[in-house]
């Protein structure tokens, strides 16, 4: 089953729309769903032109395709547990929060908190991901606990904050504090980033570019060969009695 949702031009374009109802599972029972614009509840068809092709009995067979200006549409794919969501443009905040299975593919840019507290499944973002991609929630100990997030563009600040398990790969640069509080899992940044793995306890963080503002509390162990690259290996963050691994191509202290 393929559900196509085309966002209608909005009258109050700046008020975000929260659409946690857009998860593949819900479409097994039809399209009689609602979304919220600010404090107003709207029917799905007030916001989208909806078309449905085919049918399905299992969530794995549901694909939801979103098009139009969806860059302010929040919480799409929240608690998603299977199936596929394809977003042809950009997507608003909190896409794929708490996701446990299935695939989300964003062809444009993703706003903040993409895949927050994700437990499983796959998110692919072809554009840039904003701050707190694959992160945790305020005050929570554990961020991402499973699954994969791959961003082909750049990522913002606080990438993979508090990651406990799972894999996050960014092909471009990442911002400040990538992998802060990391205590498990794997973070790979192909480009540069600043202050990676701050306060890390455990896990592995790879920076194939330069680690700017490298923190002084990582102990240099030596060099390793990794996928054809020579990387410098550090362990830390010793400030936090951490035993994580940080591998960087190059680094620069703020001395």
């Amino acid at each position, binding site marked *: 089953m393929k559900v196509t949702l085309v966002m209608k031009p909005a009258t109050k374009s700046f008020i975000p729309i929260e659409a946690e109802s857009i998860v593949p599972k819900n479409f097994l029972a039809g399209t009689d769903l609602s979304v919220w614009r600010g404090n107003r509840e709207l029917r799905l068809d007030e916001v989208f032109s909806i078309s449905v092709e085919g049918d399905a009995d299992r969530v794995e067979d549901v694909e939801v395709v979103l098009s139009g200006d969806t860059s302010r549409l929040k919480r799409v794919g929240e608690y998603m547990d299977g199936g596929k969501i394809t977003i042809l443009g950009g997507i608003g905040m909190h896409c794929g929060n708490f996701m446990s299975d299935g695939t989300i593919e964003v062809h444009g840019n993703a706003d903040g908190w993409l895949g927050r507290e994700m437990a499983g499944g796959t998110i692919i973002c072809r554009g840039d991901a904003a701050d707190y991609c694959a992160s945790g*929630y*305020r*005050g*929570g*100990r554990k961020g991402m606990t499973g699954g994969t997030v791959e961003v082909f563009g750049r990522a913002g600040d606080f990438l993979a904050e508090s990651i406990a398990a799972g894999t996050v790969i960014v092909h471009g640069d990442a911002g400040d504090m990538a992998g802060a509080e990391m205590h498990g899992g794997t973070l790979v940044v192909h480009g540069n980033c600043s202050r990676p793995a701050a306060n890390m306890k455990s896990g592995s963080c790879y920076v194939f570019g330069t680690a700017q503002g490298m923190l002084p509390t990582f102990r240099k162990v030596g060099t390793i060969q990794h996928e054809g690259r020579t990387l410098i290996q550090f362990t830390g963050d010793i400030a936090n009695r951490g035993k994580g691994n940080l591998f960087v191509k190059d680094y620069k202290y703020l001395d």
Partner: protein
Amino acid sequence: MSELLVKNACVIDPLRGINAETMDIAIRDGRIVEEVSGAAEVIDARGMLTMPGGVDSHTHICGTKVNFGRYMSPEDMRAGRTPRRGPMHATSGYSVPTTYGNSYRYSVMGYTTLLEGAMAPLEARHTHEEFIYTPLQDTMANTLFDGNWAIMEAIRDGDTKRVAAIIAWTLRAVKGFGVKLTNPGGTEAWQWGKNVSCIRDPVPYFEVTPAEIIRSIVEANELLHLPHSVHLHCNNLGTPGNYTCTLGSFGLIPDLNPKRQTLYATHVQYHAYGGSGWKDFCSKSEPIANFVNMRPQIVIDMGQVMFGRTTTMTADGPMEFNLYRLHHDKWSNHDVELETGSGIIPVVYRRKNLVNSIMWAIGLELALLTKSPWQCLLTTDNPNGAPFVKYPEIIALLMSKRYRDAEFATVHPDTGSRVPLPAIERELDWYEIAVMTRAGQAKALGIQEIGKGHLGPGAYADVAVYPIRIDDVDPSVDYQKVIEAFGQTEYTIKRGRVVARRGECVVDGSNATFWVKPRVSEAYDMGKDPDFIEKFDRYYTVRMRNYPVQEEYLNRNRCIETEAEI
């Protein structure tokens, strides 16, 4: 004039010795009366279990420390969120809910009276502000005196009357209800990063021992004729082998008051530990309960631990730091100048953890081994052992050996060799539960005379009608029904009005705060004592005139005046 008649209620009212009698309860203008007119609104209780409104004699619901528990825990707030609905405001939180969350959930369980367990005098105004937003229960605050400089100096000088005078002035100023000692002396030592290990360690600089503090304040409490006894959180909470310290503290207490206990020892589960370390950690509930059984002057509450996530919060700052070093999660501490302190950390009690399993057993053992239910009251030291919403499960555990055995089978396998619980056959009955959840609590707090905790004519019309017929249910078998019934009243009536019905709160409510004003002679009025004033001005950071809590913070209140012997 408003009248209400609750008909055909199956009443258990222990303070009047009523045990499961079918009767009508007449209410006029918020009070129980002998009879009402034919115009009274009628509620047919249809034989349902009906008791005085629940009283919690030790809970943490309002004030600086509780609010800091909320402030630092957005992850806890995510659980239990409800929107504004009818007269109910929005709520958030599981282990430390918002004030409305606390109030609604307690009300739905039939509770109408709550004692905040620990209020720092300097920050009393905060507690009272939150009381205003806890609309469906009457409230009172235990006031902390464990590290009070002026009191420790008076004790060092051997002047018990001065100790009493300082307590009198402070209770009046902060609109407090009772005297709370949390790790006496330890909270002062903690302001140097130190602690006292038990009752014979001197407090740095002040050179008084916890034993002296306890003895002296117990005597002072009785000189003031306060409704409640001293409310003690013993030294050395949470450490293996601490039961000897607890017994030592209990042994200090003479029997000074014919009407009630002389010492209320709180959350004794945390103080009934054997062993020399975590490796041989075990239950010492038996010696503690045996001691209490021989001492009518002591009442304890359980401080039951239930499995799951919660937040611990206490004025016992050093203990929280030790817990932080064990868990290494977040840790907050807040020392209060010249008075006391507090600490907060989140915890998870796990069935798979041996220590946690033993703790769970100890609380139940204390309740089952203490012969008189009047001497062991049901609490979790909310939210320290568990959020209060777990009370129905605890009631069911106490009433059903079968339920205990079923739960015991799920805890750490080594627990059996460390605790006496599996061998205890006792199952509490409905009457005993009524004692432990309202009558005994009211008596211990000394508020039965002003009309709390019973349904006699003149009493506050606080009534809980539970949707269960006790003749039809065998609690030792149908424990699930017990849990359901105590989890949600059919009706909760507070001051003559139905405030909650089948899980929904139906009015906005307006609570009353009970506080105590001991009358002392001119010579013992600390407000006029030059030495007291001078030290206050020099070492506090607020002016003495700005210290007392104004009447504005008590929207509806009842002042209990006592005639002191000083």
